[in-house]
Each structure stands twice: as structure tokens, then as C-alpha cells.
């Protein structure tokens, strides 16, 4: 235990890392995982351990979520036979191994990165793994996270451990306050635009500063969610009263004496004064405008009042080529004002932006207006859906002509069949604008829920601040 009490100032990364380290060899550390979150994509790993006659080592440290493949309308039937089989297989595997299963019919079902925190499964100080690249979302609760592939999932199921090399520590401090109409999504898109899609490779990012502290949990989830889009290994926020207030009373959160002990421990997790970071970056929140992407990488982000950039002056030929190809794919001409680009549809959803605060922000813009393009609102979980309905948000969306759907990944990745046609342009609150992400030939502009709502009611990328001003 001496290491835990040592006087050397340590970062939060050091603290979480050290308490999970079992042994080190061959340049890696074998780490114990507190929690393994699985979804329908886990079928290959379950099949592998089944063939090898291996058991799930810690079913109590494993939870299964039906999210990627579930339909977002027409439930409980699943029209596509293959999809029905994939969803049923998750339930089978969970039952066989005694794993908590949040299936399509469960009132707590939702996207793994939305529903697991809601259930109180994700906790501060955890090493949390998931066969999904957006596991960094749980960093909002001060968990260290690691995305894994199917083979590594087999290893985690059987051993509850991962072999990892320690990431370097990076701190991103965002000082000041975000302007009205500007939120966590704008902050993170701005950040990725500034440091690039490779900007944090090999680093675990600790987000700090007044603007981060001021975010509610939903905003922190959004911020941490997109850590992977800047190449980070993980991204997290130190636990504070906001964090504890969120966790307290959740179904699987510790209670009573266990809660008191947990809180005492979690209060010791934040980085010690004087601890050194391998890299630091400072940002001023006041400089950030509502931000959208124009290209096919999340780093292709710009303020809404900017224009589509001209690739010609870009000195680096590789980047110039990428931007040229991106603009061709997106069907955009250099110099076009971003706020003049017409969209064919709007998607408000995904593990990035489908929580209650996101839906509130979107509804505030939509209220009393009409969506002029087909627009979907896909809540991140059944709990979000129920809370939104209790506040009447569903009625606002429906009155505006938008579709109010059932929770799942939906058009973020489209594996359940929620896809767009080639050439269609979408204002989306998800996290990836890669070629073909929302369907072959589909064009994606990433933005905040409020900005997506503004696009829905105007039919083009729009500065949400003008719509808010229009109100008062």
C-alpha cells in the first residue's frame, strides 16, 4: 500500500494506473479491469471462449447492452432476421454466463455509453474497458478507459485483465466561460480542429479548467466521448461534487457505508498539486464559437461563421490531398460560407449527444418552429426518453414535425439499417464524419444538438445564436 500513500505528487492517471497494475513484463503492464461493457459486437469473443471451454471470469464485472443493432422504430419486432439473431445472441450469451443484460425490452436499455453511467455501473477510479472506441465517454466520471477489439475482448472475458503500455499524461486546461449558445460539443470540435485528429496520440487527456468544471455531467460525457477523435488513449475529468451528485442513488452505485468509503477514496483521485504532465495545453473558452465540420475528418472543424477552406495554400501535400478529396466527397466548393450549406436531413442522437441536456438544448431551438427537412431525434437511452417525455420535449419535437424514436446507435453508424442515401447531407450530433459512415456516399456535418436543431428548422447549417436572439 506504500505506493498509494507516497508523497511524490501524482497525476490522476498515475493513481488509477497504479492501483490496477498486477505485474509488468515485456514492456507492458498487466492491468486489472473493474468493468467490461459488451454489446452485440461481442458475439465473436463469446464464441471464441465457448470453443475454448473458458468461463467469463467475472460476470459481476461485466454488463451487456443491446444498442448497435436494435431498431429505433417499430419495436418490439425486429424486421431483419440477421439483426434479430444478433440481438438475441447477446441475450443468450449474457444469460449463459450470468451477465447483467440490458436488452431491447428492458426499461433501462440504451447506448452502452449512455446507459452504463445512468445505472451507476461506471465509477470514478475504474479501469473500464469496452469493445468500442468511444469508451472514453466514461472518463467524465473519472474512469480510465481502454477500447479493445474482439480478440482482446476474449482475453478480458476470460481473465478480467488487459496488457497495456502506459499512456503519457496530457492536461488540457480550458479557462473562462463558454458563451451562450456554445456548449461541450463546440468545445471538443474546436479542440480537435486545433490539435488535429492525431493531436493527442499516445496520451491520456485530463480535461481541467473553469470551463470544464462548469460543465454538467452531460457536457462532460460529450467532451470525453470525442477524446478518441483527437487520437487520445483515454480522456477524463477529475471527480468533484458534480460527479458525486450524478452517481449518488443510481441503481448499481454503492450505498450506505460503502458509499461513504467510496467517496473518501474518490476524493483522493484528483491530480496532486505539483504533479508533472508530459504535455499541457491551455485554451480560452471565450474564444469558441458554435463549431461545425466541413470535411471527412473530425479535425475539419470551423466556426459556423467561417467559409469552406481552400486547399490550394495548404503546404503539406498529404494534408492538401486529404482536404481536396474530403471536399470532393462532401460536394463543397472552397469559399462557400458554412452557414449557407443546405442539408437534407438532421440526426440528433448517439453516445456523444443524446442525453437529457442535449435534448433540452435542441428542443429550446425547435420549440414553436417547424423542421423543414426530415429530422430524427433518437434518445440515448430509455431513461433519457422517459425523462424527456416527462418534460414534454417529445411533444416539442413531434409538433415541429420531427421523428421521436427509440434508443440505440441508429444513424451514427447505421449497422441496424438506419442509413442515408448516397449524396444526402446530414447535420448530425454524432462523432464521426468519415466517408460512408452514415451510408455509402452519405455526407455528414458534425455539430451540437442546438446547432443540429437550428439546421432542422432552417434547412441549412445555421448559427444557432441568431435563432436564440430571434427569440428575445
Amino acid at each position: 500500500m506504500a505506493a498509494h500513500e507516497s508523497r511524490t505528487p501524482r497525476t490522476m492517471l498515475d493513481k488509477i494506473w497504479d492501483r490496477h497494475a498486477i505485474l509488468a513484463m515485456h514492456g507492458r503492464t498487466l492491468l486489472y479491469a473493474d468493468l467490461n461493457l459488451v454489446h452485440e459486437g461481442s458475439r465473436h469473443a463469446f464464441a471464441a471462449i465457448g470453443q475454448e471451454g473458458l468461463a467469463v471470469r467475472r460476470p459481476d464485472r461485466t454488463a451487456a447492452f443491446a444498442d448497435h443493432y436494435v431498431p429505433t422504430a417499430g419495436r418490439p419486432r425486429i424486421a431483419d432476421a440477421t439483426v434479430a439473431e444478433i440481438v438475441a445472441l447477446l441475450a443468450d450469451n449474457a444469460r449463459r454466463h450470468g451477465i447483467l443484460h440490458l436488452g431491447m425490452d428492458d426499461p433501462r436499455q440504451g447506448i452502452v455509453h449512455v446507459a452504463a453511467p445512468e445505472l451507476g455501473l461506471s465509477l470514478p477510479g475504474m479501469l473500464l474497458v469496452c469493445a468500442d472506441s468511444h469508451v472514453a465517454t466514461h472518463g467524465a466520471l473519472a474512469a480510465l478507459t481502454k477500447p479493445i477489439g474482439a480478440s482482446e475482448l476474449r482475453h478480458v472475458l476470460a481473465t478480467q485483465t488487459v496488457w497495456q503500455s502506459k499512456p503519457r499524461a496530457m492536461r488540457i486546461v480550458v479557462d473562462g466561460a463558454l458563451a451562450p449558445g456554445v456548449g461541450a460539443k463546440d468545445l471538443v470540435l474546436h479542440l480537435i480542429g486545433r490539435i488535429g485528429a492525431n493531436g493527442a496520440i499516445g496520451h491520456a487527456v485530463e480535461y481541467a479548467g473553469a470551463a470544464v468544471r462548469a460543465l454538467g455531467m452531460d457536457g462532460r460525457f460529450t467532451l470525453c466521448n470525442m477524446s478518441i477523435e483527437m487520437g487520445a488513449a483515454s480522456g477524463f475529468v477529475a471527480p468533484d461534487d458534480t460527479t458525486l451528485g450524478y452517481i449518488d442513488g443510481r441503481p448499481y452505485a454503492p450505498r450506505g457505508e460503502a458509499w461513504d468509503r467510496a467517496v473518501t477514496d474518490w476524493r483522493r483521485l484528483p491530480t496532486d498539486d505539483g504533479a508533472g504532465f508530459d504535455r499541457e495545453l491551455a485554451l480560452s473558452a471565450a474564444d469558441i464559437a458554435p463549431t461545425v465540420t466541413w470535411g471527412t475528418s473530425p479535425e475539419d472543424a470551423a466556426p459556423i461563421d467561417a467559409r469552406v477552406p481552400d486547399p490550394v495554400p495548404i503546404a503539406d501535400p498529404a494534408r492538401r490531398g486529404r482536404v481536396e478529396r474530403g471536399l470532393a466527397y462532401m460536394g463543397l466548393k472552397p469559399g462557400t460560407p458554412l452557414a449557407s450549406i443546405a442539408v437534407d436531413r438532421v440526426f440528433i442522437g448517439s453516445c456523444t449527444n443524446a442525453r437529457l441536456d442535449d435534448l433540452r438544448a435542441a428542443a429550446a431551438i425547435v420549440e414553436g418552429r417547424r423542421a423543414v427537412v426530415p429530422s430524427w431525434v433518437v434518445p440515448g437511452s430509455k431513461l433519457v426518453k422517459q425523462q424527456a417525455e416527462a418534460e414534454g420535449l417529445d411533444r416539442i419535437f413531434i409538433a415541429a414535425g420531427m421523428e421521436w424514436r427509440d434508443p440505440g446507435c441508429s444513424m451514427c453508424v447505421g449497422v441496424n439499417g438506419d442509413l442515408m442515401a448516397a449524396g444526402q447531407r446530414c447535420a448530425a450530433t454524432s462523432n464521426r464524419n468519415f466517408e460512408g459512415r452514415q451510408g455509402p456516399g452519405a455526407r455528414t456535418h458534425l455539430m451540437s444538438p442546438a446547432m443540429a436543431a437550428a439546421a432542422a428548422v432552417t434547412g441549412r447549417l445555421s448559427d444557432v445564436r441568431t435563432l436564440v436572439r430571434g427569440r428575445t
Partner: protein
Amino acid sequence: MTPFGVLRARAVPIAISIVDTDQIIPARFLRRPRGPGHARLLFHDRRADGSFALDRAEFAGAEILVSAGEFGTGSAREQAVWALSAHGLRCVIAPRFGAVFRENAIRNGVLPVALAPERIARLVALAEARPDAAMAVDLPAQRVVDADGAEHGFAIDTFEKLLLTEGLDEMSLTLRNADAVAAFERAYDARYPWMAPRR
């Protein structure tokens, strides 16, 4: 897994500036069970007109893929590696790799080799000029010897090298330390009882 020693093979160059895993295998194919059919899914949406490098006759049978752009960023989908393997590719050379892709590749016996962009440009030019000339990827010596005999050293961490050169499964490494894991787990459960959410 077959141990990876020295691979002598021809190379196919891919000119995409950022090769995210959505490009390598589009999400709508993720539902398919692993099999030889994954070869056709590799870069599926780029291959509609048959002019993509993988479909050019002169590159048939290539076992090394040389990517001008960083490779395997984005989604954690292991199907990206399955598609490469099914296509007979055993090594990818690129300026940089997505972290999870890299881990997935190692666990499937596919060697990721990171080289500087100017070296990659040279390999691409050689592959285009002499598609039938083989190059050698020597993992034990950590170097690529191109068709002209020029050597390009590369870095790989000891863990990855061990897994590949010995065809070792990380599971066996972990199971060799089963006692340490069990002891750790007992102590951890006792010290942080609230961290097992469903105890």
C-alpha cells in the same frame, strides 16, 4: 497463430490519405461471420469500378500493403484486420496506425510497420514501377528491405514483437501468471469492495 519471421512478398500500394476502419470495411458488413468472404469486403466501397489497386492484376497475390496515409484510425472493429487477412495480407506499412487497429493486427498475426512518409513514398513508387518485385519484411531484425535492396528500420515494442515472432497468444502469457492475477484480485476486491458494481 503462425509465427512471423521474414516475409518475402510483393506489395500493393494504397493511396488514401486517412484510412479509417470505416473505409477498410464499411459498418454495414460488420454483421457477417468471419470467413474467406471478408476478402471481398476489404475497401469495399472503393472498389466499385475495379480500378482500385487491390483489383489490379499486377498486384494480385500481394501480401504487403503499403499505405500512403495513416492506417486503421477510428472504430475499434477487428473486422478491418479480418478483411486484410482474408485477402492474404500479412503486413501493413503506413506512416502511422490507429491504436486499436494496431492491437487487433498484432493479435491476428498481421504486422503493422510504421515508416516515415518519405520512405513510404519510395516503397509506393517501387511497387508501382515494378509490381512483381518482392520486398522483405524482417521482423526479427526490425527492417524492411525494398526491391532495390535499400533497408528501412522500424520500431516495434517488445510485447508486440514477442507475440508475433513466437505466434504467441496473450492469453497464454496471462495464464502463466494466473496466481499473480488471482492474488491481485483477492486483494483488490478486499480493498475496493464498492468497485464491483454487482457484488
